């Protein structure tokens, strides 16, 4: 209330506001700001504090230009994401990759509804990806952006279902963005059409604010889930989680960190614990508040640090881009002042409509279900976690914000050694990234070879999954190493495995296993000796 009154004093009595330009008025109205709207219906006098109903504040218009700036930035990132899907095509989406898609569809039966089907040829799969990329381009340039977002969303959801076993928060962040693009009031500004028509004139256009505030609610659920769930993780509360995460094979800086760095990394650990759940409260700070800028700086540093040291760039850049909307008032002011529209703003500015009533209801239902889907392990509410998650999946918007609280289960150290012994020749080693890529997905693939499976594979089909990944990895490796595997020989892959925890921070306690062993001739597989390939269930056993 104090800040509300102060803000009221700063912005002057309401009657003055009625004389202000409409775009300035709407600038000052918002969930984020104090109650300072001159158009408040219940203002009873010049010196009375104004009370704008929460609903009106939630709906208050925002700059359409800023919303479209967000659209363009997200569109560009989604185009890059599609580029990555194309680059990874042979490893995951095609038949030659790590996943046996027939088995995959049996293990994860709910992924069967997808645009891609097992018999589909590669050109078809590439065409589907191409349509998605086209949708992302349409979204970015503003040519039927909602249709573009819908196309990209359908393709992304299909690809995620097809490659469900290796999907992570990077992928679900893209789904999230595309989902919101369907609802946000986009496409009025910064389009290919308006570029030549003088886009400076667009800075005064307003857009309905409901979906922007609803997006903020989504951000709240995101950060509160990601932040608070870490507090129940013992590695996080012991101050060791960041060290362990950075030691994982998926981290870009894996190998750089030793136990001597733990005191330094402890600060990063505590920073995450304290600030991550606090980040979304930035939206309650009034326009231009110094603390808002300070939090934004921390927000950016935090989300730049993760992709630089660990990976997961799309999820982190999504959250950095969300700052465009968080700072919509500040950006609006900046554009309004510096771009100086050529034509004076109209007294009755255009308001870009958001969705209809049903769309708003759908978004409210989505946010409630999303919040319930994040209640895993919470007493009482936790009972609805699985149905809520299934509902999200059913709607094509599966999200999971339990980020890195899984470190207590996934704290596995894994080091592969690929050794090749040509018949009659010198033994040599091959970089293990030729077998499993040094990426988050590469780590996820290996998780199915250890008891830390990324996605929950129904027991005991984990054995079938493991065998299929090993067979597909060998086939992929043989194709990649065709030249170096000329002649005859034997390849042995040994893995050094261990748990990184309080008692084993220096990885002094590890064990070795022969992960796979096979013989080859002229780049072709002759025999897989480890693991032993099963013969198939004998009918006599169950008949």
């Amino acid at each position: 209330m104090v800040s509300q009154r102060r803000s009221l004093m700063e912005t002057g009595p309401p009657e003055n506001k009625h004389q202000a330009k409409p775009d300035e008025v709407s600038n000052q109205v918002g969930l984020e700001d104090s109650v300072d709207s001159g158009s408040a219906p219940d203002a009873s006098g010049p010196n009375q504090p104004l009370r704008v109903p929460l609903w009106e504040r939630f709906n208050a218009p925002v700059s359409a230009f800023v919303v479209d700036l967000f659209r363009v930035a997200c569109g560009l990132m989604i185009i890059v994401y599609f580029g990555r899907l194309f680059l990874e095509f042979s490893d995951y989406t095609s038949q030659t990759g790590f996943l046996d898609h027939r088995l995959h569809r049996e293990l994860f039966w709910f992924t069967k509804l997808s645009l891609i089907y097992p018999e589909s040829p590669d050109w078809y799969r590439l065409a589907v990806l191409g349509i998605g990329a086209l949708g992302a381009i349409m979204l970015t340039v503003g040519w039927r952006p909602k249709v573009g977002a819908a196309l990209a969303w359908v393709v992304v959801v299909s690809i995620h279902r097809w490659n469900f076993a290796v999907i992570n928060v990077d992928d679900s962040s893209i789904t999230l963005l595309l989902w919101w693009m369907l609802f946000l009031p986009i496409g009025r500004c910064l389009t290919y059409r308006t570029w030549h028509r003088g886009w400076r004139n667009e800075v005064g256009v307003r857009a309905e604010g409901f979906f922007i505030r609803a997006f903020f609610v989504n951000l709240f659920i995101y950060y509160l889930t990601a932040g608070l769930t870490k507090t129940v993780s013992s590695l996080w509360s012991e101050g060791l989680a960041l060290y362990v995460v950075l030691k994982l094979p998926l981290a870009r800086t894996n190998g750089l960190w030793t136990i001597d760095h733990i005191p330094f990394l402890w600060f990063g650990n505590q920073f995450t614990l304290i600030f991550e759940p606090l980040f979304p409260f930035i939206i309650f700070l009034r326009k231009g508040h110094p603390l808002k800028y300070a939090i934004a700086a921390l927000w950016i540093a935090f989300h730049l640090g993760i992709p630089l040291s660990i990976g997961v760039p799309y999820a982190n850049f999504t959250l950095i881009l969300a700052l465009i909307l968080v700072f919509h008032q500040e950006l609006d002011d900046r554009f309004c002042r510096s771009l100086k529209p050529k034509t004076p703003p109209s007294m009755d500015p255009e308001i870009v409509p958001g969705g209809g009533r049903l769309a708003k209801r759908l978004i409210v239902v989505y946010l409630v279900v999303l919040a319930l889907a994040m209640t895993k392990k919470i007493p009482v509410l936790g009972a609805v976690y699985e149905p809520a998650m299934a509902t999200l999946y059913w709607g094509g918007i599966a999200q999971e914000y339990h980020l890195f609280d899984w470190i207590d289960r996934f704290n596995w150290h894994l080091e592969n050694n690929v050794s090749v012994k040509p018949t009659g020749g010198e033994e040599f080693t091959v970089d293990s990234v030729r077998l499993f890529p040094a990426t988050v997905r590469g780590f996820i693939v290996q998780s199915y070879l250890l008891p830390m499976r990324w996605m929950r594979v129904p027991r005991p089909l984990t054995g079938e999954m493991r065998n299929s990944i090993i067979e597909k990895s060998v086939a992929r490796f043989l194709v990649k190493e065709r030249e170096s595997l000329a002649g005859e020989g034997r390849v042995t892959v040994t893995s050094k495995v261990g748990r990184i925890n309080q008692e084993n921070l220096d990885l002094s306690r590890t064990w070795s296993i022969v992960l796979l062993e096979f013989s080859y001739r002229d780049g072709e597989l002759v025999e897989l000796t480890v693991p032993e390939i099963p013969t198939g269930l004998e009918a006599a056993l169950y008949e």
Partner: protein
Amino acid sequence: MSDRWVWIYIVVCFLQLPLYFHFGRTPLDFDFRMDRVESELLRQDLTDEELTELFEDLNEAETLLREAQVHDSRWARIWLNQAIVSWHLKDFEQTEKLFRKALKGFESTHGADSFYVGGVSCRYGEFLMQGGRYGEALSRFESGLPAVQGSLGPDDPFTLRILFRKVAALVQFGRLGEAEEIARESWPSLVAQAGLYDASFLQWTGQALDSLTRARKLQGPPGGMSWVETLEEARQQGRGVEEAKRTAGP
């Protein structure tokens, strides 16, 4: 998004429902049934009636798989659970038959050197040991342990349980040197996780370790108590329980 498109979205979602039902009926029914049976089997106070009901449930799960023409390791999961129910019912002949069937099932679906084959082999070894067939039990532990240890690691509670079963079997055969080697390496982990085991296993293990101590192969536990007392005290303190909870998978 206009309301018209929202309607289309909702209709498309609802149109998918029958397909989800069609695809998910058998796997979900199977998983719910098996999860229920397995969680019931963790109870110590099951009556014969309840056990017979569980066996019925497993038979129905078999029918599900047969009707859906499933030919994977889920069959072996049923047989393993049937073996355990029969063991509880003290139908030892049937138990042994089912253990062998489960082993064969996992061998033919996962491969002979797989984790599940190792795990079932070790469980079968425990069954044999309870019947006093130490020689057969020992060979089951020896064949199963590498896969279990390789997959779960040397400090996993299941690995440790089987390692100390093996110690007890080796002590029975007077192969004290081999028993000592395992015990010396792994006793700290066992004590650190004693809260996860039942009293009879720790009693049995403690007696084997005390035999090794009496034979001057293994030092007594720190504190001057016997191994039986040390392990029981650690069990009562619930050591390792919290750690196991936080690292438990979904």
